[in-house]
Each structure stands twice: as structure tokens, then as C-alpha cells.
């Protein structure tokens, strides 16, 4: 189902999702670090950022690179090359718990 979310309605829905998400997912706090706000902003367009700490034990730099690439290629995440690099540096620095 996606036809109903076209055009202006889509933009409004996206805004509502974001507002509601911020209001209700407040309890999730990502670690401080350069790139945190950009990471939170891009990832939270589609999903809550608790997916990040939940997967941290499994992830290293290469794992996060693949994950970001998958989000861009398979799921159409609107992330530029430059942003992807900043997000990768943040995640690899703060959430790479794979031994």
C-alpha cells in the first residue's frame, strides 16, 4: 500500500511520523560523538534509533558500512556520500561492539 501516500499527503505524513517519533522515542539516547545528530536525523526518518545499540554487539566498521549501503541501495535512504561517511565514522566509533 503506498498510493495514498503520494505528494503533499506524503510530506505531511512524514512530518507527523517524525514529530510523533521524537515525542515517543525520547527515551533512546545515542552516545555523544561527532555525527550523532546527523545519524539520528537520517536513520529516524524510517525507524527508531534503538536499532543501533541493539545491533552494536554484532557490528564493526565493515558491518556498519554494509548496513549503511543497504539502507541507501535497498531501502532508498536519502543519504549523500559525504553524510554516509560521517554516519559511518560515528557508528564505527561509538557502536562497534563486535569482538
Amino acid at each position, binding site marked *: *500500500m503506498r498510493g495514498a*501516500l503520494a505528494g503533499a499527503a506524503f510530506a505531511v505524513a512524514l512530518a507527523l511520523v517524525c514529530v*510523533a517519533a521524537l515525542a515517543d522515542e525520547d527515551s533512546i539516547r545515542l552516545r555523544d560523538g561527532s555525527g550523532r545528530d546527523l545519524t539520528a536525523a537520517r536513520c529516524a*526518518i524510517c525507524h*527508531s534509533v534503538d536499532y543501533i545499540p*541493539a545491533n552494536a554487539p*554484532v557490528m564493526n566498521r565493515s558491518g556498519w558500512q554494509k548496513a549503511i549501503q543497504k539502507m541507501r541501495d*535497498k*531501502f532508498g535512504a536519502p543519504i549523500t556520500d559525504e553524510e554516509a561517511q560521517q554516519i559511518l565514522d560515528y557508528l564505527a566509533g561509538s557502536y562497534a561492539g563486535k569482538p
Partner: protein
Amino acid sequence: MPTRRDLLLAAGGGVLLGSATRRALADDTGAGAEELGALPGKKPLIRRAWRPPNYETPLADLVPAFTANDAFFVRYHLSVIPQIDVDTWRLKVGGVGAQKPLVLTLQDLKHDFKRVTLAAVNQCSGNRRGLFSPRVPGVQWGNGAMGNAEWSGVRLREVLERAGVAAAAVEVVFNGADAPVLPSTPDFLKSIPIERALDENTLIAFEMNGHPLPHWNGAPARLVVAGWTGTYWVKHLTEIRVDTAPFDGFWVKGAYRIPTGAFPGARFKTQETPETTPITEILVNSLITSHVSGAQLKHGGRVELAGKAWDGGAGIAAVEISTDGRQSWQPAELGRDLGRFAWREFRHRLDTSRPGALVVAVRARSRDGAMQPEKLTPNPAGYHHNIVQTVTLEVG
């Protein structure tokens, strides 16, 4: 169909969650604290992710023969989850392989077809992913991305027959009302082979345990593919398409796949490649629901181990218990047979005559001879975790 306003409200509603309860729970693997949270209409469940909502059933709620609707696990891929008005909801049945396309209301479904009820386990393909070693990425599910329910609805076969299935049909594709946030994200559509679509145990269900489907479990109607993993049980059904070529969508071609030949189970041949193939049937499995590792047992006390065993529809032949490091196995007592797609309860009296650690292993065998394995079969997405479960209890 949901109105635009419904969709907008739901876009918020999908994440306007009920009050969260926080409680630290140590799980079997020591994987860390678990947080409970309640979606509207649900009791507090283990929150694996806020949005899209992924909530797991706690062990205590897997004890009853049927899993309560408000305790049943919740699994979504996409964050826009509309509240559907059942009066305006329509189910489109068509596609190039359907000779007489239909549009059905919920009343049509209820009155024009034979009502059937089927007890079946709904288990997420990734159930127990969080118990994989080495660990793999994805929602870190424990044991509770599963449940057993009585599903009532109509046979998909009858609906398809009314729509006139062409001889050339190869797959049937299902779409639900849940949608991605971004138009660039693949919508969640799934297909099944035409033979499975025409199987008498594939239903369009509108009730669960005698009540209308809960919103978070697919209201007003969802697919039930008894014996197959939950990924095929498309929720909030809106469209059914009979196709004469293999479906080309991301959620079949690019997700929910296992290495070809690595696991037993039905084959989805029109989607198979030399490297990977879609996951299909649930593998034989069991779960101890009476005890977790670390539980203290009274020395000399009367203690009964209990749990559930299930598979993809052959039915459970036996459950066996070992308390001597898997040297010998004793048969557990099986409970009532609720149907071959349902889980089967098992019970076994434990010997508490010796103080100290009591290591209990449980394995189930299905009627087709399949047995739970000792070792995990690694696969990138962490599916089919069905190895023999062991708990370490303390008699003292």
C-alpha cells in the same frame, strides 16, 4: 480502504505507543537487560524496537496452550501502519492469472465462503536470532517471536477459485496496508507458490482465538500459511494477485532467504537460485516454558519440567529429556494434540534427589522423522534456530 485522514492519523498512531514499563530482565544467554513496553491494546511485551514496532512475547505468556491475543508477538518491517475501518476495507483479488477479478468486503468474506478454524503456530523466521553464536545482525529476538493461536477465516483456495485461477498461474502475491515512510523503500509484498496458495491449510483469517484480529496482528484480515514461517502471513491484507511469472519484489528476491540445500523443508522452486532460496516451513523445535537457567529447585521436591514442541505441520512424534549430558534420553509426556500445525505441550518429572547443578536438555522429533539438531547451521540472516535447548538448574 483507509481514508487519507486515517493514514495520516495512523502514521502518528503507529508510534503513539502506550505507557512503557521498564524492567531489567536477564535472559537465558545473559545477553543483557530487556525492556518491556505496551502497544495500545497489548500487554507489556519485550520491546526489541520501537518503530517499526517489534515486540516479543515473554516466556510466561508462552505457557498457556493458546497465546493470548494481547500477548502475541508483533513484527513489522515498515513504519506506516494504518488503522483500518472495517466498513470501508476492501480486498482486491486479481492479477494476470485471475480470470474473474473480485473485490470483497469483510462481510463478503464472512458470508460467501465456508468458515474454517485452524490451530497453528505463527513463528517469525528470525525467532531466536539473538541467540545465534556467532551473533548476526537484525532484530535480536529471543524465544518469543512466536505464538500458538486458533485462526478463523476462509480458505484462500475458495477465494482464488471464485476469481478463476489460470492454468499458467505460478505464484500468488499478497500486499497489506502497512507502507514504507519513503516512496523509495520497497513495500512489503510477499508471494507463495500456487500449490501452497491452493492448499487447504492456507487461510485468509479475520479472527484469532475467537476474537477479531488485533490491530497489531493484522486486522481486519491476514494470511495464515500454516506450517510456514511468519514472513508469509501478510497482515492487513488489501490485495491478492495471481501471477503467471515469479514475483520480482525485494522481500522475496532480496530478503528471507537461506542458503540453497542447507535446511530441510518445502522448496519454493520458482524463487530458488543456486546460491539462495526462500525460507519456507518451520523446522522441528521445542521450548522449555517452566524453567529458565539459574532456577532453584528444592532438594527432593516434586518438580515438573514443561514446555512446547512444534514443527512445520508433520506434527510432533516425541519429546525427549536428557539430564546426563545427552548420554541417555527419556520420553516426556505429551499433552493434548491441538492439531498438526499447533504446538504440543510436554511434561517431565525431574529427579531432584541429588543436590547441585542439574543440566536438562530437551529435543523434539516430528512425525516425519526430523529431529532437533545439536549444532546451528550458520546462515547470514540468522534463521531457523532450532538447536537442542539446555537449561542449567540448581538443586539445593
